[in-house]
């Protein structure tokens, strides 16, 4: 199964309308809608609900004053960091002040969503507007403050340095400075967030369904906030309609408020985010400004690199500094920077919070580093691919320690990769060496074409751990669970492939559950391209454990030595001796000595069913009943996948329309479990990379209003915009885990802006320093360069 293009087991349900997403559940539940701030920054003077109280179907209206116990405290700061000394998180409902358009102020519970929305419209909130801080320039000015007690709007300043970058740059033969910026975009899954909570008053327990990337942590957070013993709370993820990072943040205000209201009202309560809410009250990412100084020798080799950047973290910092830390470390890509210094400031603005979106800071870092490579090549007149080759970390240098601390608090050490081989594959795939003549021929026809490269390294499989549980049922079926969640990546298929191989059963017999705390309590979550590495390794280790137990029981039953046995298609048999075999279901029966014959199979394990050894206990010492096992995987450090993209663009000489002619990808995620799934991850990532380079941006006006908060105005690409994608793979297995896998979820998105900017630059002949870029922006750039 491993390595094969296996069809996804999830699909028949999803294709026939039988998927069950959050909003497909809880038709008996009360509906929730929120009063959300129309101001980017304001004091709340008064909330008047009197006009709303007569609405038929209204159940309750809650404001901050109704919150009790720990629900009235700010939401948790999920990832504290020693340099984040001005971390701020919101209250579930605003306590007297709002800091971005969309912040929740009042919660309405009603018989259905139509009624709840009507009530929202009748609640009068009086505001005293405060000066809004919008964009990094206003934030850095510090004339107005987002939080009155945070001087200069600076949440954190962090510096890492290896060697003396300033000295190395000063001593270098050549120097360059660059100013590079990237605008905001967002994960924008097709399904927004949503929460359904049921309080069982008799059992004093809470069952919560939520569209999250971390059900175990949501469970702990709800228990803590509602002061309920954690064993009285279970959190289940139904089918999830995409995540891309935005659903790893938790608990969202609604994940606390909905269970809180369900307990208070004694009725099921459900909230489903609408699209506008998702735009203005979930999370964005990418907005950063970078100032770079670089020193290099005559051959284009880096001597020293110094990067200062400013990260727009929005109004609050619940996810800590993860995104800028990733930029600051992953910026280095496949290169040796010489001496390196990086300093960033994480800045408050009166806009939606910023938390990881697929790629999580890497697209910005890759854009910076690849622009540096292209600037060096242009300055020295060296081929852009050659400059990269000269700066690559070589395969013999693996594992390569950069001397920095990564996002998991552990050293930034690359485990594997063959960057020269990847680039050679990419050059062959795209026809790099032949492009000069193609460009010249196109120019002769009055066409503008250009080619660009983008290389990246992606820390994947981040710890601390994941686990797996596996049980063989007495009918021979295999049930597997892991605690992290799925948002459409095909985890059930991929994990079943691993289990089928490790255990020796047909894949159809394996059923996998993810993200259900009733089944598995200890987990971290789905982020950082970590499922194949973490849960894949965990279920493999678990399957090996259960296999060993099965062989032990079977050896006894077959009167054979364990080493002589094999498991093929669920049958345990003596190698090379057909006829003597026992199926896994029967082994499962034997593993559980019984008193009661509740079915025909069970009768075989009851106390009078066969001869007994009166000197031994029915369950052997040191064993447990049942053919099942649990194991965990916790690596010392992250795996590091890598890849390289090449893009060919054509720009219209008159309209400045930007058209992608070819998009080529070479990708190394270690060993590939299911090529079809990996390709799908790359395709989806590339589509988001192209979107971030050419189409998507968050258009805030100076007042902090998000002007394009709908699918009508936010230009998410359709099939008419995303180009055909050509892929080649290189497999350098990771030495860190039992499967050799490295993770593939985010990779495709990372070098999009870098490669497309380079291609446009090549076509146009002037530097591209700001992404995304629209035809009208390109048109303006042309005019400015003509005027010079």
């Amino acid at each position, binding site marked *: 199964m491993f390595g094969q*293009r296996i*069809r*996804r087991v*999830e*699909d*028949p*349900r*999803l*294709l*026939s*309308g*039988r*998927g*069950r*997403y959050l*909003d*497909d559940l809880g*038709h008996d539940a009360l509906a929730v809608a929120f009063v959300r701030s129309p101001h980017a920054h304001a004091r709340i003077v008064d909330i008047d609900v009197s006009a709303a109280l007569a609405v038929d179907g209204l159940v309750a209206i809650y404001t901050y004053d109704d919150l009790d116990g720990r629900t009235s405290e700010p939401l948790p700061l999920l990832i504290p960091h020693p340099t984040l000394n001005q971390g701020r998180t919101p209250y579930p409902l605003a306590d007297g002040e709002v800091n971005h358009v969309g912040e929740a102020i009042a919660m309405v519970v009603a018989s*259905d969503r*139509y009624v709840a929305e009507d009530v929202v419209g009748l609640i009068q909130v009086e505001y005293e507007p405060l000066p809004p801080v919008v964009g990094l320039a206003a934030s850095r000015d510090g004339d107005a403050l987002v939080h009155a007690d945070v001087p200069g709007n600076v949440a954190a300043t962090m510096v890492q340095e290896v060697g003396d970058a300033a000295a190395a740059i000063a001593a270098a033969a050549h120097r360059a400075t660059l100013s590079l910026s990237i605008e905001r975009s967002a994960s*924008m*899954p*097709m*399904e*927004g967030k949503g929460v359904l909570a049921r309080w069982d008053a008799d059992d004093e327990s809470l069952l919560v369904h939520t569209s999250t990337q971390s059900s175990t942590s949501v469970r702990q957070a709800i228990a803590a906030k509602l002061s309920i013993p954690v064993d009285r709370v279970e959190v289940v993820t139904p*089918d*999830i*309609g*995409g995540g*891309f990072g935005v659903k790893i943040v938790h608990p969202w205000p609604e994940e606390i408020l909905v269970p809180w209201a369900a307990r208070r009202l004694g009725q099921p309560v459900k909230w489903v985010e*609408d*699209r506008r809410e998702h735009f203005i009250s979930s999370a964005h990412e990418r907005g950063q400004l970078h100032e770079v100084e670089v020193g290099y020798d005559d051959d284009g080799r880096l001597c020293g690199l110094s990067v200062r950047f400013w990260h727009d973290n929005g109004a609050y910092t619940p996810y800590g500094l993860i995104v800028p830390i990733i930029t600051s470390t992953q910026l280095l890509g496949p290169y040796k920077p010489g001496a390196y210094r990086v300093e960033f400031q994480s800045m408050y603005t009166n806009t939606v919070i910023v938390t990881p979106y697929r790629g999580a800071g890497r697209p910005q870092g890759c854009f910076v580093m690849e622009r540096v490579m292209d600037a060096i090549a242009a300055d020295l007149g060296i081929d852009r691919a050659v400059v990269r080759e000269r700066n690559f970390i070589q395969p013999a240098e693996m594992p390569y320690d950069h001397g920095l601390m990564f996002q998991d608090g552990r050293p930034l050490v690359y485990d594997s990769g063959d960057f020269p081989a990847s680039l050679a594959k990419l050059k062959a795939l795209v026809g790099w060496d032949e492009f000069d003549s193609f460009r010249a021929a196109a120019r002769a026809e009055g066409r503008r074409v250009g080619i660009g490269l983008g290389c990246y390294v992606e820390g994947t499989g981040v710890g601390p751990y994941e686990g797996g549980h596996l049980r063989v049922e007495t009918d021979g079926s295999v049930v597997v669970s892991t605690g992290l969640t799925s*948002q*459409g*990546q*095909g985890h059930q298929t991929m994990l079943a492939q691993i289990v089928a191989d490790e255990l020796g059963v047909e894949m159809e017999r394996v059923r996998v559950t993810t993200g259900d705390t009733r089944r598995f309590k200890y987990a971290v979550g789905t982020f950082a391209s970590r499922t194949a590495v973490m849960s894949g390794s965990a279920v493999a280790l678990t399957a090996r454990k259960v296999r060993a137990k099965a062989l032990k029981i079977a050896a006894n039953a077959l009167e054979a030595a364990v080493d002589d046995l094999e498991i093929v298609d669920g049958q345990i048999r003596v190698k090379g001796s057909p006829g003597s075999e026992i199926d896994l279901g029967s082994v499962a029966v034997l593993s559980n000595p019984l008193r009661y014959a509740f079915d025909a199979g069970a009768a075989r394990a009851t106390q009078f069913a066969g001869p007994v050894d009166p000197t031994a206990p029915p369950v052997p010492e040191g064993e447990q009943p049942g053919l099942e096992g649990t194991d965990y995987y916790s690596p010392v450090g992250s795996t590091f996948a890598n890849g390289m993209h090449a893009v060919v663009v054509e720009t219209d000489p008159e309209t400045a329309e930007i058209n992608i002619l070819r998009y080529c990808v070479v990708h190394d995620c270690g060993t590939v479990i299911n090529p*079809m*799934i990996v*390709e*799908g991850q790359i*395709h*989806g*990532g*590339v*589509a*988001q990379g192209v979107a971030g380079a050419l189409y998507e941006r968050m258009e805030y006006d100076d007042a902090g209003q998000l002007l394009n908060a*709908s*699918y*009508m105005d936010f230009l*998410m690409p*359709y*099939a*008419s915009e*995303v180009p*055909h*994608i050509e892929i080649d793979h290189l497999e350098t297995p990771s030495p860190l885990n039992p499967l050799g896998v490295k993770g593939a979820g985010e990779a*495709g998105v990372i070098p999009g802006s870098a490669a497309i900017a380079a291609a446009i630059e090549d076509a146009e002949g002037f530097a591209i320093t700001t992404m995304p870029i629209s035809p009208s922006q390109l048109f303006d750039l042309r005019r400015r360069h003509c005027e010079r």
Partner: protein
Amino acid sequence: MRVTTTVNGERYDVDDVWEGESLLYMLRERMGLPGSKNACEQGECGSCTVYLDGLPVCACLVAAGQAGGRQVTTVEGLGSAEDLHPVQQAFIAAGAVQCGFCTPGLIVQTHDLLRRDPHPDDAEIREALAGNLCRCTGYEKILDAVRLAAETMSAAPVDDPSGAAS
């Protein structure tokens, strides 16, 4: 008000429908047919695409009352998990499903395309699907699926459950 309509070949009499209610809401909340998805409520994403008298529409933009006396076909009416339509089978074979939230709308839209044009070229496929947003797949394998479905359906034609007058 009462709305009497035929959905997936079955007659429904639905009471207490509010005049402002969408067809999507009625299908999902009152008829137990949650296959059609709600992702934007403004006709931009196509996740709620259904047939109304044989024409694909965004069910979020059609008032429930407008379905009165007419034929509606949803993704549930094209094929079940046990008996998938060739379009659905092609989506599996090509790996064209990831999170699945946009998929029901794309199945209906693809079904409509191949009914009108059994042999679309790539530009025609991209144009026909340009009202359906997908955030997961980058569309590459969806295009593969449409081409595959076109092949298999030309080789073995199937009944058309869309409710179109033929």
